[in-house]
């Protein structure tokens, strides 16, 4: 580690844009070694400031929002879902009309503490009912007839990040959401594995001998760039996070592990702004009840362990958790005791600094549906992104989203 004096001297050298510096400098061929001292400099600069983090949780497959946040007094609900509706007695009541799925008891506790905001009727114009396309739309923050190659977090990285590890996906592979033009986030489930792999001296030698021509080559350049960012980030993530261990009490499954690792990262002071975790299996075309019971249980229990882990380490106040799914499901159940792809859905915002606690807005109307028999959207998901970018991550949301959206006031 460099002393503060050394860092100060280096920072004087670095008067020009760092990237330009790297490019022009004779050090270019040893690009590999530069990030460590630059990083030392940055760590001093950003220490002791409130470091806000965003945790995004994706429920893949299209979670049935109507059986998640339930209008348990609505006759239409019971009429359209004769065998899969949740009975009044099973629902965890939040108020006289609306309740939560019985697996979501931990969320009720967050609700009671003012740590949960439920945004209803979230979607986008001309909803697409394909998983992949709709997920891409959520990932890239595009319109439904617009195809973007970069994710919204990727563009956030392009705009304001200095390192790929500013966004980490707790997965074996990286979603488009975290892929930018200049920057990609890091995908890792286990930082130690990544670190051990990256340490081979042979790789250092290979990178010493690469030059800009490599980086400009189409697919090969992409491989070299990925290699460079993996090596520098792996070391930092591993060495920073190994000092802290997460508490017990997380469900022993993949999603529980993702949040456990996330807590470990956050509590170690890792300079990561965005974490991305996901839980799949929500595509309940058939026999929905058991599947959703189990999955929402996994979700809620993991969230509760995660929040209490952060609270113990005093990091919950600087963490915002956003949960979404690519679409909701049809109001009317199908013949297989399940539901088909729908449109608008609810989004959960969990945090300690919520302006609007409880329900952000009313639940969607069940009598005013679209032509497919799906809930109509009321809130464009991109207004949520814009709000989070602007008010939480404190960047220019218009630049990241390529467009201006209204700000909401949940934070």
């Amino acid at each position, binding site marked *: 580690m460099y002393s503060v004096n050394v860092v100060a001297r280096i920072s004087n050298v670095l008067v020009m844009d760092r990237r330009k510096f790297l490019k022009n400098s004779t050090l270019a061929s040893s690009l590999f070694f530069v990030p460590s001292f630059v990083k030392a400099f940055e760590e001093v600069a950003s220490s002791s400031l409130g470091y806000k983090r965003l945790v995004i949780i994706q429920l893949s497959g299209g979670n049935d929002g109507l059986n998640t946040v339930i209008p348990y007094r609505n006759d239409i609900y019971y009429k359209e879902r004769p065998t899969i509706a949740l009975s009044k007695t099973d629902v965890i009541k939040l108020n006289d009309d609306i309740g939560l799925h019985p697996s979501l008891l931990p969320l009720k506790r967050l609700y009671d503490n003012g740590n949960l905001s439920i945004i209803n009727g979230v979607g986008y114009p001309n909803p697409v*009912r*394909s998983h992949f396309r709709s997920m891409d739309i959520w990932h890239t923050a595009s319109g439904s007839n617009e195809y973007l190659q970069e994710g919204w977090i990727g563009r956030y990285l392009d705009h304001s990040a200095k390192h790929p590890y500013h966004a980490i996906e707790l997965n074996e592979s990286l979603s488009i959401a975290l892929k930018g033009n200049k920057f990609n986030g890091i995908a890792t489930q286990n930082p130690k594995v990544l670190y051990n792999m990256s340490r081979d*001296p042979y790789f250092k030698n290979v990178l010493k001998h690469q030059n800009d*021509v*490599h980086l400009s080559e189409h697919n*090969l350049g992409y491989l070299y760039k990925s290699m460079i960012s993996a090596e520098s980030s792996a070391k930092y993530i591993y060495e920073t996070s190994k000092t802290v261990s997460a508490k017990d009490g997380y469900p022993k499954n993949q999603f529980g592990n993702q949040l456990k690792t996330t807590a470990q990262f956050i509590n170690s002071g890792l300079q990561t702004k965005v974490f991305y975790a996901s839980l799949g299996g929500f595509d309940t075309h058939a026999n929905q009840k058991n599947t959703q019971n189990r999955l929402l249980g996994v979700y809620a229990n993991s969230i509760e362990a995660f929040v209490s882990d952060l609270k113990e380490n005093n990091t919950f106040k600087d963490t915002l958790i956003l949960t979404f799914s690519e679409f909701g499901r049809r109001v009317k159940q199908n013949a*297989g005791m399940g539901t088909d792809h729908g449109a608008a859905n609810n989004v959960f915002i969990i945090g300690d600094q919520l302006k609007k606690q409880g329900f952000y807005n009313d639940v969607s109307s069940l009598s005013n549906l679209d032509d497919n028999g799906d809930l109509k959207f009321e809130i464009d998901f991109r207004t949520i992104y814009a709000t989070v970018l602007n008010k939480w991550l404190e960047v220019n949301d218009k630049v990241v989203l390529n467009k201006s959206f209204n700000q909401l006031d949940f934070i």
Partner: protein
Amino acid sequence: MKHKHIQHLYWRTGFGILPAPLNTLSKNSKIEIVEHLFKASKSVTPLKVDTSEINALFASRSDFTKENRKKFQEISRKKRIELNVAWIGRLANTDELLREKMTLFWANHFVCEDNNILFIQQFNNTLRKHALGNFRDFVKAISKEAAMTKYLNTKQNRKQKPNENFARELMELFTLGVGNYTEQDIKESARAFTGYNHNFKGEFVLRKALHDTGNKTFFGKTGNFDGEAIIDIILEKEQCARYICEKIYKYFVSDVVRKEHIDEMVGVFYPNYNIEKLMRHLFLSDWFYDDENIGTKIKSPIEFLVGINGIVPVQFKNSRQLLYIQKVLGQTLLNPPNVAGWKGGRSWIDSNTIMFRLKLPSVLLNNAYISKIEADDSDSMMAMSSKNRNKNNRFKVEANWNVFNTNFKEVSLEALENHLLQCHINSKTEDYLQSLKKGAKRDYCIQLMSLPEYQMC
């Protein structure tokens, strides 16, 4: 034909080519070599694991007990791993090379997954059977596969309450591509696939009472269409041929699509949908061998794994470890991420997978050693410490270097990179390689395989 072009052809239609067959083929013309590939793939050899255990389990009607069904699930789980390993073994060692590569391609087009070993094995062999056949027959066969009726819920698709899942993916992913149909088209066509089901053996069954025989209006036509009629109407659209040609181009030629090439391919494919004819045209075209298409694709994890195995055969003592490697690389056969399949191209690569790919050849073939420790590099001493070494070397594998020694006997150390690397080598990398060309051929082989360039095909 030029060495470089034969290697290109064999990387795209297979998993590379060894020095001896390369030398033999280089005396032949392009047409001869391409025809040879098609001729070898005329036959169809189904891929089967031993499922006699299951037949014994359900010998009579009275055997259909809850307990036996549970046993069946256990056997299925075990057998699915066997099928995965057998499939990789097949890819590494087959005479029907092109058919197998096409089967791999179609498995990521008609994406399907099923826990039932009998159904998924049957599905896999349907892919193999139609891989070079007629696309129309292919789509119809797929729509009636037991595994598919389960995977996309056609068996829950009933007259009274249609389930749109299959109808939607049929158009979005299997034939037309997103945006080339309306929501109404999906609703109407879903009605045509009502009543689709299968029996225990996995044979197609149409449950007449659940099938909607009313008129459907689909793409402007009205009639009592059944599923096959809907597929015929879809295939009337040239867009279907275009969608398939683009996908084939991206897989076999380049991530960067050239419209003039696609137009040419559509002209061959539409309206008869003869897959073999299309592929022959592709491999005989001049542009397939353009420099911009050689060594510019990122290998899929399976291409990468099977390719390594072609150079130095690797025997896994624990088949679960082969599964694990596929998982970390991001492509486990028989276990696709979702019905859209693997995106391919750059999406194979992220921080985790690039490091794993670079490290894997040395881990499998050389106890995780890539290069000898350089005395002045203290960091490398750390990385090479014995503790670290054991962690990396947890795969129980046997690498058969004798096969390598025999196959590459006539290849000099200098020429080895021409056999292992498909892409252009940068001058600075070349300098570094020169400095490595001092040791044994075997060490140099590992070093070449540990370069980012080795990831290209």
